[in-house]
């Protein structure tokens, strides 16, 4: 099973790489392919990539990534339409939107795959706890970001919000979920923090009977944090 990590030399902020390390522990026979910024993404031409992953990146790196991915816009769109499994965390989803707006109103054009756009506010960093729902499970995590995402994600949101914010401070719908494309602003070791979601993701990736690494410990940590977050939300 192949997992492609896009641009790890740039998309490596906020401990997001913990997600890939955890998937590797859950899938010891998996092959991690790291695609660097001057290379063509493998999933464009290869059919056997079980997951494409991109983590949080800096604002300047977003611009570099957009430039590198631009020639593959149509291919990426097609891949998402045909069910390619992707997980984008932190601000990485912004490169697939219409544009990213700076404080001075200047705009960086994105790949325009999703009908969303981001606004930067570099003087105000948003930090918050998050509690929400995905299907029948509770999701928790942390947000730390300079941008907010705008646009209508009512038809393709990932999580509902119970505590914290959605794609922006006025939204109660977090992330983007279209076919097998998953994007969330939750940062860090999101898959370790959310073992039940990880099980679902592994199933989407084609694992019939997925097993969690360090199952007992991650479930215990999840339950302790869930309890704490519910106390905070009350």
């Amino acid at each position, binding site marked *: 099973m192949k997992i492609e990590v896009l641009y790890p*030399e*740039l998309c*490596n*902020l*906020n*401990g*997001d*790489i*913990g997600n890939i*390390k*955890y998937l590797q*522990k859950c899938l010891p026979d998996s092959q991690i392919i790291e695609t*660097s*910024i*001057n290379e063509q993404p493998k999933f464009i031409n290869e059919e056997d990539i079980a997951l494409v992953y991109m983590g949080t990146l*800096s*604002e*300047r*790196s977003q611009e*570099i990534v957009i430039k590198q991915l631009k020639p593959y816009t149509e291919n990426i769109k097609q891949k998402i339409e045909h069910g390619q499994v992707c997980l984008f965390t932190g601000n990485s989803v912004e490169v697939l939107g219409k544009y990213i707006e700076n404080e001075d109103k200047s705009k960086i054009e994105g790949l325009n795959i999703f009908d969303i756009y981001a606004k930067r506010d*570099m003087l105000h*960093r948003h*930090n918050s*706890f998050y509690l929400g729902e995905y299907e029948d499970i509770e999701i928790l995590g*942390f947000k*730390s970001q*300079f941008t907010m995402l705008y646009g209508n994600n009512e038809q393709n949101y990932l999580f509902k919000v119970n505590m914290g914010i959605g794609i922006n401070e006025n939204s109660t719908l977090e992330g983007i979920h279209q076919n097998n494309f998953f994007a969330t602003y939750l*940062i*860090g*070791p999101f898959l*370790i923090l959310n073992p039940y979601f990880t099980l679902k993701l592994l199933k989407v990736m084609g694992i019939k009977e997925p097993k969690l690494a*360090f199952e007992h*410990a*991650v479930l*215990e*940590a999840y339950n*302790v*944090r869930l309890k*704490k*977050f519910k106390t*905070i939300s009350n």
Partner: protein
Amino acid sequence: MSNKKTFKFYITLWIAKVSSFALKILRRNATYFPGKIALQLCPNFLGMLEKPKTIIGVTGTNGKTTVCNMINDILSKNKFDFINNKYGSNIDGGIATTLIQGSTFTGKAKKQLAVLEIDERSANKIYPYITPTYLVCTNLFRDSLMRNAHTEFMADILNKYIPKETIMIENADDIICSNIANDNSKIYFSIDRLPTDLEKCENITRDIRICPKCYTKLEYEYVRYHHIGKAYCPKCGFKTPKADYIVTKLDIKNKKMTIKTKNAEEEYDLINDSIINIYNMLAVIIVLKKLGFSQEKINDSFKGLKIVETRFSQEKYNEYEIITHLAKGMNPIACSRAFDYIRTQTGKKAVILILDDLHEEAKGSEDTAWQYDADYEFLNNESIKQIIVAGPRYLDSYIRLLMANISPEKIVYKKDIIEATSQLKLEDIEKIFILHDLYSIEETKQIKLKVKELINNKEEMRKI
């Protein structure tokens, strides 16, 4: 904005001075509030207040407190008359407090020298009003992601606000730090290639991996840790600069280093053997040289100087050595450096980790994302026989240790710090390391006491 003193300025100054006096009478810390209130009442206050003629600023991600403490101690030892924010905060309110306390009732500077630790994130609030004569930048790494985001963000802030007149003293082995304020005059420092340097980086975190000019993957003549080392772009020639002060010989065994400059080669005694503290010493030496100190005077002044105990302490207790080491929570680099330090020390060890940021925890819960940027893998070492994790995030730390392939048999994980410490196995170890956060000083003392109690009990048992 005009820096001419206004009536509002004088009123603000007097209120701040009275509040400072009142807090001292009440035996409360007057290290932040007077400055904070002054800046609230008069936002341009720092601009109007007269500053000492010479200002030594120290900024950067790691080491600024240690560098300032060393400079302050040496200046005090040599009877310099100066102000500093040693006991105060390093953000705008703390710096304003220091300057208020160092000024007369008419806003004139009482002293002609200031040593100021300056938080890098506060650059936008400080440098528009204060122009350091010299500004040391120790290094730039990712720090608390909630506050400092990433190094590009920090570098942008520093580049935007550091005054052009300031002479920068920068770490030449840090390709991010050495490119701060490129239009300013600079003095670079470096430590020459060491036997412990590597061909390839073994850290998880490297805050710069591609050339910022042409996006080609950066290469290294050698890597020391993270992005520290001799880096270059094979395509466009972007590289770490040549240093003005270079440690050419490092004799850890005899605790000596030789520093080479354009015109001289000088030997200094080391006060600590960790590379980070050698960089810190190097920065201190340059500052002292700029203040007119000779090599002899600097070396004499270093004698008897110690790294502040809240950051590092070493104590022989019966046949054991107990070492406490600051590893700032939420700062993956500081933790990785501490982990690396432990694994490279001789002897068999036990490690007690209380790295939770209790300040953050008090606000609700700590974001543990930083743990996956920190090299817990360094603790997966044959010489480390036991690892004890305790505190509110003990389960997260336990999982992180498992992710580093550390055998669960080696790990004790409990929320209660004393209960966890009670399980310390003293057999087959010589050293006990206690790694703690800045906000866990009291807990560290309790753990140390418990460790001593366990050692005493063992002695008693042996006698029986």
